[in-house]
């Protein structure tokens, strides 16, 4: 089956499932900001497609399964982590370990793709400073 066609569609899918999973857990998890959700899905789509969303810049694509299901699982885990160990505040620091993990699943060296993406793409985006910093520290 195809992957979601647009960013909005993919965000919607992830949003719905993550909310559903919280209900099942019966623990009040921190809210995910619309912006954070969009950032994660953007990162997934760009690494999958091997180019930026606007199509202007080429990047090394990843072989990892960066699917909506993976994004859902990463966010769910990040929320649990924030709830118990980060005063219920969800930040890039909680989300990104899961992303690195997803890449590492297919190859120990795969996070290098993310490192390259961080230095060439995210560094230049002024509104992604926290993600850039967090990734730099984690990788």
């Amino acid at each position, binding site marked *: 089956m195809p992957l979601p066609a647009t960013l909005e569609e993919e965000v919607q899918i992830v949003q719905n499932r993550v909310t559903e999973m919280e209900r099942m857990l019966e623990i009040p998890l921190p809210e995910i900001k619309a912006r954070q959700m969009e950032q994660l899905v953007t990162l997934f789509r760009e690494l999958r497609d091997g180019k930026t969303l606007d199509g202007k810049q080429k990047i090394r694509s990843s072989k990892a399964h960066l699917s909506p299901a993976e994004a859902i699982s990463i966010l769910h885990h990040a929320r649990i982590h924030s709830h118990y160990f980060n005063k219920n505040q969800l930040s890039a620091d909680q989300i990104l*370990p899961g992303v690195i993990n997803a890449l590492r699943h297919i190859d120990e060296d795969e996070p290098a793709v993310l490192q390259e993406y961080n230095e060439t793409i995210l560094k230049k985006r002024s509104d992604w400073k926290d993600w850039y910093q967090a990734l730099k520290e984690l990788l």
Partner: protein
Amino acid sequence: MALEIIRPFAEEQYANEIQALIQQDHLPKPRNWKLSPAAVLVYMTGGKLADGTVISTKYYGSRRTLELAIATLLSDRALLLTGIPGTAKTWVAEHLTAAVSGDSSLLIQGTTGISEDQLRYGWNYAALLAGGPSEQALVPSPVMRAMESGQIVRLEELTRIPTEIQDALITVLSEKTLPIPELNRRYMLYRVSISLRRRMIRTKGSMRCRRRLKEGLISWSCHCPLRWKKKYR
């Protein structure tokens, strides 16, 4: 002369620490958990409780790894600890299980000769021949017992298990269920965690871990000095 157990389970050896933590832990506990996640972390990292009880340090590595691992036990996926031999994967898994479930006896040792029965369920053949498939004739594996009781089951040396046998875990990890077609019933996994560990380096004779199985896992690497990591990559 009294006999002495060479190696008691973690929950026996550190029973007084766990008991003190339970008594002084007033934070909400997730269902089936003996301690709150914060108290589990204290049990692992060590510290001093309000009443003066000293909790020994169980793990000296990164606190963050522990936090991520504890959070994974509450997530929809199972915990996979990776790392080169001797980085305390087994130790961490055992103590996490003792602190969370209060019982670390549900254990499967992965070997190349393991059969699917040991991951799913087997039959008591005398009872099976006498009365056909029934609950009484069923011999549950530690995985199934954990699913019934909501405890953590540990699986050691995942990558020593032949890939075909590892596949028996896919339904458990992705569908959260263990079907028993002979009895037309299935066990549902409800927020039960499986903690597995595997060696990071593939040595001669070790098996791959299928990607499909990995999708049901969240793995965290046990701390080891950076130069080791590079050497073994």
